[in-house]
């Protein structure tokens, strides 16, 4: 296609000034998150030995790096302007890896479930010995519990810190990352209880707790995959927390119909990353000042929110 045939309606994404430091803070937190998770993966791998529950928690932790990496990588794409090959821009760069990560999570959850149930049915009894720590013979179970605590407590703190920036930036990846990190204590607590159970001689405690962990991973993976699908089929913009329709949709309609020259209007919107793509179909009272009217409608919508990036206004005679 020749350049003069393509129109780039949206600009590259630029955050308003008051949100920029928040974004920088989010980037810093995500970098810390990745470094921290790498440390968790290494420590847990060393102490894992024959615990099913720990294996489950470890797999979940490995995958928890995906949203953080997505966020940082996609961040660099965000600064790119739309071009002829990608006239709609790179706003959706976030979604792709996120969707893959969501599906991977679901698949891993199913695998862990199968693995833990089969080991439970086979009656596998974890044999956990000891190791010399600073001259004292220590049961490896204690080391596992320590590793699990390290995998949970800082995660909770990080998640807690990231949740507010995520909400303000309307960033789905950051939000999912933050809320799963906040809930990380549940997985670790289940695994710890499993190991304590082994210590008490209840060999099944480990497989049962791995089973519970797998169910929560499956639930998470399913929710995210479903969310990714909704995103793919252009669902109307939603609120991060509740999933309800974003109030901006109604606001756009109200703003447009309040305009003097507009008789009636219909709106359809969709999300691309944090940006909203809007298409407005208007019936005007008369078409004398068509271009001025359309321009003022457009700037009226744009001024509503920083997320209103791509706007198309179409004058029609009927709906």
């Amino acid at each position, binding site marked *: 296609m020749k350049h003069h045939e393509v129109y780039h309606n949206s600009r590259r994404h630029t955050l308003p000034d008051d949100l920029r430091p928040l974004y920088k803070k989010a980037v810093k937190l995500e970098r*810390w998150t990745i470094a921290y998770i790498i440390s968790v993966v290494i420590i847990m791998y060393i102490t894992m030995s024959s615990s099913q529950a720990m294996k489950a928690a470890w797999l979940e932790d490995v995958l928890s790096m995906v949203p953080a990496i997505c966020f940082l990588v996609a961040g660099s794409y965000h600064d790119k302007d739309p071009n002829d090959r990608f006239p709609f821009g790179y706003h959706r760069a976030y979604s792709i890896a996120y969707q893959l990560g969501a599906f991977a999570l679901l698949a891993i959850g199913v695998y862990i479930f199968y693995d833990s149930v089969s080991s439970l049915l086979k009656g*596998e*009894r*974890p*044999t*956990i*010995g*000891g*190791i*010399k720590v600073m001259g004292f*013979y220590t*049961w490896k*179970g204690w080391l596992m*519990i320590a590793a699990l*605590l390290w995998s*949970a*407590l*800082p995660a*909770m*703190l990080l998640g*807690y810190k990231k949740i507010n920036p995520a909400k303000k930036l309307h960033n789905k990846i950051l939000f999912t990352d933050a809320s799963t990190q906040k809930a990380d*204590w549940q997985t670790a*607590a289940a695994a*710890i209880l499993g190991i*304590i159970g*082994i*210590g*008490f*001689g*209840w*060999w099944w405690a480990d497989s049962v707790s791995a089973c519970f962990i797998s169910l929560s991973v499956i639930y998470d993976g399913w929710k995210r995959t479903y969310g990714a699908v909704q995103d793919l089929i252009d669902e109307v913009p939603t609120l991060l927390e509740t999933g309800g329709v974003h109030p901006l949709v109604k606001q756009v309609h109200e703003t447009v119909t309040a305009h003097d020259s507009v008789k009636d209007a219909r709106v359809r919107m969709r999300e691309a990353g944090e940006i909203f793509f809007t298409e407005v179909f208007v019936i005007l009272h008369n078409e004398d000042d068509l271009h001025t009217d359309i321009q003022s409608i457009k700037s009226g919508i744009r001024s509503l929110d920083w997320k209103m990036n791509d706007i198309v206004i179409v004058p029609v005679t009927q709906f």
Partner: protein
Amino acid sequence: MLPFPVAQIFREAWVYHLTEQMTSVSKTYLLYAAICFTITTLCSCGHYPKDTQGTLDNAKNGTLRVGTTATTTASDSTLAVRFAQQLNASVDWVHKDQQYLSGQLSEYKIDMAIGGFTEDSPFKKIVGLTKPYRKDGKKKYVIAIPKGENAFLAKLEQFIDTYEAP
């Protein structure tokens, strides 16, 4: 950025008297502290970890059932005898091959088997293995025990740590 804001927890607990005004982060930290405390008190009474089949308790002051193979050396047998002495138990010897002994271990019919078992033993799916008690060049020899007998394993490994081959 400390992962354990201890001062924050204590300050909030004191000021808000453990009410809902504490942040959820501090509450969860306290929950963990409570779990740790409970664990320590629970485990300080009685032997921890425990066996699933009571191997250690059965062997103490009773009989230690030891399996040997054709590759069991004299020093291996001495190790077993010394261990039994520590448990104040007499020794019941079962002499066969690794496959038979592994089967016996998996059915909890013997307590340990010593003789040619290494860390990458093909039987490690059905038996538990201790840490190496002897190194011979590249080979590391271990003792096979029944799976899930963590108390027995701990006792045996601690014995291995202090044992010096004569």
